[in-house]
């Protein structure tokens, strides 16, 4: 199963009750968001509205279709804008 | 809908009549580079603008018995282009040339810079140092006033209602004389002087200073003439001791404020630095060593 990793300082920790690593049954970004919400209510919404994810190192923003492999490491990070 | 009137008289009398006759605030306009900005910012609400550029004498440069007579409204760019004047009073010409951008040079004038009465005006310390005389016209006719008697305080002059400056006179040059003006700004252009310094000297055959006038800008409510700084030069060559005395005298004369352009401490120190550097150029010019631009 893909593994979700939070930076030990991430604001999401409040929702994960301090858990910095956990596995999620998901094959896409979309599924991940839904799974996160069932596992930790509010986290999915937080990710969807304010965060991007890095799948095996690569950053995805607003990309439901992005695929997760069984061994994928998913890191939740703040969304990135720019000038 | 606007209550503002504009007039461009073609004689001194008409100009004076308009200025003296106006009930509300009447402003003389030469280049307008300060006036229009102040109006736009709402700091100045004149009822009458008298554009004096069409008044005979207000524009142009001529020489009478060695003395230079500069139409007080002559644009900086025109003054800058006058080789004869520049050769004898490079300090005054370069100081005027430092005002604003090339665009502003197309409009700005000695009278405007002087009567805007900013202590940081670039051409004013140079005119102080040069011993310039202002030809003032008004309801009581013509009078000649030393330039340092014109500014009364920030934004204020000693000109009476109806008066304006028609011409600026620079005295005939004596041998072995030279002037210079330097200012300090944070950038290389487009800034208001944080400190300005004008020096005008006459040397004897041995390079000893026999006469000097030193002025400082932006270190007091008005541009300062600094007799102690001049005294530090007179009777001396420009050696290290003289420079040190000059630096000290210049710093001692400063009564600056701290503002967005500089602190009291910085302005005072830089006044000393500029006095030394400006004097060096003025001495070289008096000794005929350089004709190079000071900046």
């Amino acid at each position, binding site marked *: 199963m893909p593994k979700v990793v939070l930076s030990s300082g991430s604001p999401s920790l409040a929702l994960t009750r301090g858990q910095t690593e956990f596995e999620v049954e998901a094959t896409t970004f979309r599924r991940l968001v839904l799974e996160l919400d069932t596992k930790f209510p509010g986290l999915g919404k937080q990710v969807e509205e304010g965060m991007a994810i890095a799948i095996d190192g690569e950053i995805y923003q607003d990309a439901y279709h992005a695929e997760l492999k069984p061994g994928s490491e998913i890191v939740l990070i703040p969304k990135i804008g720019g000038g | 809908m606007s209550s503002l009137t*504009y007039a*461009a008289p073609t004689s001194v009398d008409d100009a004076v009549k308009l200025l003296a006759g106006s009930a509300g605030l009447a402003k003389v306009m030469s280049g307008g580079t300060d006036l229009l900005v102040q109006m*736009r910012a709402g700091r100045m609400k004149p009822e009458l603008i008298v554009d004096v550029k069409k008044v005979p004498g207000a524009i142009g440069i001529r020489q009478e018995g060695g003395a230079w007579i500069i139409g007080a409204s002559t644009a900086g760019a025109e003054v800058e282009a006058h080789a004869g004047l520049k050769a004898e009073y490079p300090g005054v010409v370069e100081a005027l040339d430092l005002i604003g*951008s090339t*665009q502003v040079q197309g*409009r700005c004038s000695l009278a405007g810079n002087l009567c805007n009465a900013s202590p940081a005006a670039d051409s004013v310390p140079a005119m102080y140092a040069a011993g310039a005389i202002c030809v003032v016209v008004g309801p009581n006719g013509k009078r000649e006033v030393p330039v340092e008697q014109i500014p009364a305080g920030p934004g204020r002059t000693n000109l009476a209602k109806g008066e304006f400056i028609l011409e600026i006179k620079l005295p005939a040059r004596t041998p072995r004389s030279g002037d210079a003006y330097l200012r300090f700004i944070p950038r290389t252009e487009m800034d208001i002087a944080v400190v300005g310094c004008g020096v005008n000297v006459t040397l004897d055959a041995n390079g000893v200073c026999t006469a000097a006038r030193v002025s400082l800008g932006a270190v007091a409510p008005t541009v300062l003439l600094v007799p102690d700084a001049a005294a530090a030069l007179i009777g001396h060559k420009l050696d290290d001791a003289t420079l040190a005395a000059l630096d000290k005298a210049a710093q001692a004369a400063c009564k600056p404020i701290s503002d967005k352009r500089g602190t009291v401490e910085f302005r005072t120190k830089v006044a000393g630095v500029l006095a030394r550097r400006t004097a060096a150029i003025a001495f070289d010019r008096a000794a005929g060593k350089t004709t190079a631009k000071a900046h």
Partner: protein
Amino acid sequence: MAKQYVSTTINGESAEYLCETQQTMLDVLRDVVGLTGAKEGCASGDCGACSILVDGRLVCSCLMLGVEAEGKSITTIEGIAEGDKLHPIQQKFLEHAALQCGFCTPGLIVAAKALLDENPNPTETEARYWLAGNLCRCTGYDKVIRAVMDAAAVMRGEAA
């Protein structure tokens, strides 16, 4: 009070207009005459985006009253090209990519023309000081200066 009647020459054509006394030449060009090539970046003479030529002399049109144009000859960016033939400065700005947003470009081109009319062979330093009154926030001036120097060479007949 009533508007002022002004008779002048703009880009070689005689022109007449009515303006408020306090309207600047920039306001008049943009809002009365309808020439919007001169831009307002500051309205205080600090950015040069409104640069025009008055009897061949470079000025900020925001620092001049519309009524002062009486009897004068005004040149704006719209009058720099000859018909559909670009001025060498305009051509070199394009070739050197000396513009990004292009907002300061009209002022820079008018100012550069004034420079090269007066000094056909400026040094880089002379060009930089002459153009110091024209703020550009996009280019860092590098390509602008190269375009002006190159245009000068072309106008001197030294380059294509």
